């Protein structure tokens, strides 16, 4: 099977700092992949490169067999790469409905889905359990609901690759359980790339784990494999309880 996403020698420098340094990465369709690593390891920079929010200094990115290195972010979204922000950035002054209607109408325009904006948006809200809050301004939702809305927006984009940047950050335990269910649900139709600090969540969800350290891939493998890896223990797991 051909990988959905590959990167070759992907690098990004900020001034003298090599935030991402020659990363070769491959992601198979249908996978749930977790990216872990200590703070400053380059995880967020890496997914930002993949989503097109920042441009690489060198290297290339291939999505579904096509070179997307020079595509602007919005074009990548239209190809099916959706990105949910680490810091919640829903449109606070717009209603939850409008927040979701935006991605829905996008997919309609692109011809990637059919039907009406209203139905599509409500479906995404139903799926995340926000339907009854559709007409509340997003800024007035609780933090947990805002995170869910963020996911709903990602879902509404009908992604083939959904990038979730620390989705459980700030969520209560009960919310996290719901969330794990939701991601599994999503993974039935899409490939998921997940940056996560919460190790139990990672271990429960991920098919494979990629460990970043200092801008490079330190290790990659199944959760069991990673758990057993001494280097990873050293660099990362050992420092967390």
């Amino acid at each position, binding site marked *: 099977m051909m990988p959905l996403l590959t990167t070759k020698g992907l690098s990004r420098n900020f001034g003298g700092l090599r935030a991402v340094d020659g990363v070769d990465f491959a992601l198979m369709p249908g996978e749930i992949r977790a990216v872990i690593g200590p703070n400053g390891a380059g995880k967020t920079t890496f997914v930002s490169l993949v*989503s097109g*929010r920042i441009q690489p200094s060198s290297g290339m990115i291939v999505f579904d067999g096509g070179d997307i290195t020079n595509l*602007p*972010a*919005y*074009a990548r*979204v*239209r190809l099916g790469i*959706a*990105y949910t*922000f680490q810091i919640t*950035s*829903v*449109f*606070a*002054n*717009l*209603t939850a*409905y*409008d927040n979701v*209607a*935006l*991605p829905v*109408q*996008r*997919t309609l*325009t*692109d011809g990637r889905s059919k039907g009406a*904006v*209203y139905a599509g948006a409500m479906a995404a809200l139903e799926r995340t359990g926000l339907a009854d809050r559709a*007409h509340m301004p997003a800024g007035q939702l609780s933090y947990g609901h805002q995170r869910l809305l963020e996911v709903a*927006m990602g879902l509404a*984009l009908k992604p083939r690759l959904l990038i979730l940047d620390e989705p459980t950050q700030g969520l209560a335990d009960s919310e996290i359980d719901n969330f794990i269910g939701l991601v599994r649900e999503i993974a039935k139709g899409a490939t998921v790339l997940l940056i996560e600090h919460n190790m139990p969540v990672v271990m429960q969800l991920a098919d494979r784990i990629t460990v970043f350290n200092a801008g490079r891939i330190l290790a990659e493998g199944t959760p069991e494999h990673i758990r057993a890896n001494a280097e990873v223990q050293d660099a990362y797991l050992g420092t967390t309880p």
Partner: protein
Amino acid sequence: MKEASPAKAYALHLGVIALLFALSFVLPEYHHGLLARIMVLAVFAMGYNMLFGYVGLLSLGHAMFFSAGLYGAGLAVIHLGWSVPAAFAAGLACGALLALVIGVLALRTSGVAFMIVTMMFAQVFYLIILYFAAWTGGDQGLVVPQSARVLVLGDTSLGLTNPTVRYMSALVLFSIVLLVALVIVRSRYGRVLVAIRENEERTKMLGYDTFSNKLAAVVVSGTICAASGAAYALLFGYVGSTFASVQYSILPLLWVLLGGAATTLGPLIGTLFMYYVVDITSGYTSAYLLIVGIALILLVLFFPRGILGTIRQRWLGWLP
């Protein structure tokens, strides 16, 4: 916000149009004439609001779009002898084309730089009008001959200098632009514009080419302003460089802020309000600018969202 009470919003707007229509028959002559002018300039404000209110792009150069329409239409009549509809179309085309060019350049910037760049392009436009004084009349401007300001519809010809014809022409233009604006802001496209205003980065990550959307908004906005300018030239018979000066770039901003940015009726309310404040105070004192200044400060202190914006915030959440 969008799906709620569409009927109410349309009813309100049609009601406003009906009211303006009815006013034509009861208003005293002076206010009748003044209102015709206000409606034309409210179109200018609506065009400005399209960009400033909904996309959040603060331009200080919209006088150039207004005067592109003004000169486009006016000079077509004066030098080429075009008919009123053709001249109006020429004005629109000039505005749209100018907006496209300016948009492509100015949208490379944002924030304060966007303000300054638009202001400077407008200044260039103003100076060009002065430079080609042989055709534009320079700072003195030109009169559009009364004999040419006749609208021929089939067998009837309507003189645009007739107060009723002028009022109704202004009302037709105003109504069309108002309804177009309402449709746009309630459309998918309008939703995208607001999203860009709220968070452009996020909008990009939802798959929107924000540059193209903003460019389209600049063109729509510029074209509406040009429509106002073209109508001004044809209805009131004068084209002059004053209308391209920076003062006329600040005026629509004021009108929109007063009436309420990102409200469809705000531009009309703001223009109306400002006109009557100047008109009334200039009767009491020659220092009316003082009163206008104080009024502005009081408004911004106590009604920071403008008149309609405050009403929407406090009482009528469904106002578009």
